[in-house]
């Protein structure tokens, strides 16, 4: 039977451990940067997607109602199409963020989107936002953040056969 040189094995293990320790801060930094990039993407894809959709829909001459063909024609407007594409991208990015970040972290980001939508509407679509509306939007943001920080059930329920 082959003898294992224990001191040597221990040294190798310790070296590997040291290397792993040295590697950890950069990994953590990389992970933080990735999270920050996704957070910014989630916030801005939603805001710009909604703005583009609203801008495009206002430039569609035909009012959409129950007629499905009117919606299809509206989607031919470049701003509407861009808005829909950005919102699909937002949904996928949000799902990616949700796959490793807690809902209590992601849900307030949705709340930020409400405030940003009010700001973009006021700034770029010349909407009149009354003080009561700003207060309402802030209340909605705080409420969403509170709903998101409640205790969640995250384990899978037992399935009856």
């Amino acid at each position, binding site marked *: 039977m082959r003898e294992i040189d224990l001191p040597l094995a221990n040294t190798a293990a310790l070296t590997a451990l040291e290397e792993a320790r040295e590697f950890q801060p950069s990994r953590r930094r990389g992970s933080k940067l990735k999270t920050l990039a996704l957070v910014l993407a989630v916030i801005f894809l939603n805001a710009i997607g909604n703005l583009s959709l609203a801008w495009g829909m206002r430039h569609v001459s035909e009012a959409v109602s129950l007629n499905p063909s009117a919606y299809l024609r509206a989607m031919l407007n470049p701003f509407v199409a861009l808005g829909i594409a950005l919102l699909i991208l937002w949904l996928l990015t949000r799902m990616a963020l949700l796959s490793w970040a807690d809902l209590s972290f992601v849900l307030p980001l949705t709340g930020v989107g409400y405030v940003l939508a009010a700001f973009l509407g006021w700034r770029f679509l010349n*909407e009149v936002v009354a003080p009561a509306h700003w207060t309402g939007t802030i209340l*909605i943001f*705080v409420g969403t953040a509170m709903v998101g920080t409640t205790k969640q059930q995250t384990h899978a329920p037992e399935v009856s056969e």
Partner: protein
Amino acid sequence: MKWLLLSIIVCATVLSDLLQSYEMKRSGEQSVNARGLGRLLRMIVSRRYLFLAIVCMAVSFFAFMALVQTAPLSFAVPASAATFVLETVLAKFVLKEAVGKRRAAGALLVLGGVLLLAH
């Protein structure tokens, strides 16, 4: 008209979430790898509640498109948060989930915010 469209958005979103939650809990935990996603897609087609959930999601989006055509964006997006209120109520009474004081307070704040938007 904007309140009718908002009601359609809120009801369709909440119905979609409820149907998804009900059907996904019934079918147990799903993995998110490539094979798991394939199984998930087959499930959407074969399970009628999940299919209905997708239809509700589409209805909600089309109503949102109609809403932003006529109503301000600064109203349409924040007001759609009313889904949190209805979801909290239905989670408590339909799905029999435990709704804590913090979540109830959050839902009430959202309700207050939406009422201020109506002002």
